[in-house]
């Protein structure tokens, strides 16, 4: 291990590649998050109607319907067969994330992501301990529980608490006490469990993860031989258990990050001074 291990993650990349390329995907990602918010907010704020509705269900340019497939799935389990519009909308979203990597939703669209990223950033700055670390699979259990409860109560159960749609709806239609819920998640991630919400609990992320199991767009480590073990990618990755199989795999194994937990955030690409990672298309070629 080199001495660089102890410098802040990405410092080396900043020196060799310049600040901008060492933050390329981070900046793109924030821009994308703002873009998706702006699509929904330009109507109510400026009267410029592009997309109406919320992430749960929307209509863009009066023609393109989109529906959150997890919400639609709960509705189905609860015993309602939605109208065709909602089903088509869910189909389009499913197809898109099946190709682009399910959890791209998390990194590029979800309004909670900046909140939990912010909590992680502060957590690092304050040097706080990891805290409670439930298994990564807990979110799958919660996903199952949300579906079972939907079936048992005949309601779209997760929407009673879902901070993702609540924050989004809050920004567009009116907050109520949603800010308290968001603050709760921030504090939870900060002092109770590092990367607790998105990394371990959120069933929405888990659902999209399952959707993207066979994704075409993936991060790969084609230049893994050049890795000098600085560990910077492990430090920035929100799901760092996904890196090792690709980066440290034996010769002959795939350099692709195959875990559905990878959010396609591209932060590993940003911070690697040796340019080990890149985005690839196609799930077999490196």
């Amino acid at each position, binding site marked *: 291990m080199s001495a660089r291990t102890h410098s802040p993650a990405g410092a080396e990349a900043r020196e060799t590649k310049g600040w901008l390329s060492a933050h390329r995907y981070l900046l793109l990602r924030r821009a994308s998050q703002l873009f998706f918010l702006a699509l929904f907010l330009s109507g109510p704020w400026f009267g410029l109607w592009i997309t109406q509705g919320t992430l749960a269900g929307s209509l863009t340019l009066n023609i393109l319907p989109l529906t959150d497939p997890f919400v639609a799935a709960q509705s189905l389990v609860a015993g309602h067969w939605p109208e065709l519009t909602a089903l088509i909308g869910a189909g389009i979203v499913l197809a898109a994330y099946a190709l682009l990597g399910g959890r791209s939703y998390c990194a590029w669209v979800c309004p909670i992501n900046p909140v939990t990223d912010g909590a992680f950033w502060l957590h690092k700055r304050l040097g706080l301990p990891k805290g409670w670390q439930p298994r990564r699979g807990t979110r799958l259990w919660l996903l199952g529980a949300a579906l079972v409860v939907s079936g048992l109560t005949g309601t*779209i159960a997760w929407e009673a608490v879902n901070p993702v749609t609540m924050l989004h709806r809050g920004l567009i239609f009116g907050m109520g006490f949603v800010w308290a819920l968001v603050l709760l998640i921030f504090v939870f991630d900060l002092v109770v469990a590092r990367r607790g919400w998105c990394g371990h609990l959120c069933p929405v992320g888990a659902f999209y993860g399952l959707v993207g199991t066979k994704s075409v767009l993936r991060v790969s480590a084609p230049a893994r031989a050049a890795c000098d073990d600085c560990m910077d990618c492990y430090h920035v990755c929100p799901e760092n258990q996904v890196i090792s199989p690709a980066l440290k795999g034996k010769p002959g194994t795939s350099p692709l990050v195959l875990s559905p937990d990878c959010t396609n955030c591209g932060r590993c690409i940003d911070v690697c001074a040796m340019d080990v990672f890149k985005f690839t298309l196609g799930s077999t070629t490196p």
Partner: protein
Amino acid sequence: MPMLDTLRSASRRRFLTDTARAAGGCVLAGSALAYLARDARALPADAIRPPGALDEDAFLSACIRCGLCMRGCPYDTLKLAELGIDGAATGTPYFTARDVPCEMCEDIPCVAACPTGALDASLEDIDDAQMGVAVLVDQENCLNFLGLRCDVCYRVCPVIDEAITLKASHNSRSGHHATFAPTVHAEHCTGCGKCEHSCVLPEAAIKVLPVRLARAETADHYRRGWEEKDARGAPLVEGVIDLPDRLPGPGTDNLVAPGGFEPAFRLDGAGQ
């Protein structure tokens, strides 16, 4: 290989405890979630769902809380319930008739906008909507019941003379006027809330209530003999002797006992 066996059993034990812990956690989280989700069914009485809304249980399984119906409404009638502020399930659409009633748009844009069918697309004529039923809740303060001719709720009703009529009766207070009681006919009332919105009193005397609160249900065993008799065109039981009715009042032989009673007032020169 005892070493491997202990390893295996240790890891198996860990797997089992982990699974048990996760399952336990899920039951806890699931119960809390079920409590919250069911709690969300308690719709306040003054929260009226948009036209075409499925009944509340079905609605909560269908509405994805997207807000498209609200965007479709040209009169800003609809609102989405906000967490911890409004009583309806968070994010679901409703309106408060006293604030902004439904204007009963002919093309029903809210229903057309709904992608899920939570607002039933088979509602084609807004006059068939049943968002709720208006109920004259306070006869003691309603100006018409007091004998005045306010009539506002009646006049503003989009389904005037069908959903709401004025029922004339003798004004027993003054003795020589009539009262015109606003009377709602639930079968035609859409629950739009125009009447409640327009009631001139500081707190409306007529209010739109959800159907489940506004309506009684007739008992199956109770049969309206007179309706069945009319439908049949003859008495329901053969061979019943029809005795003359002994009605009280002027012009009958029944002003005094036996069996009759004195009217509470007498109109001079009437009868006899």
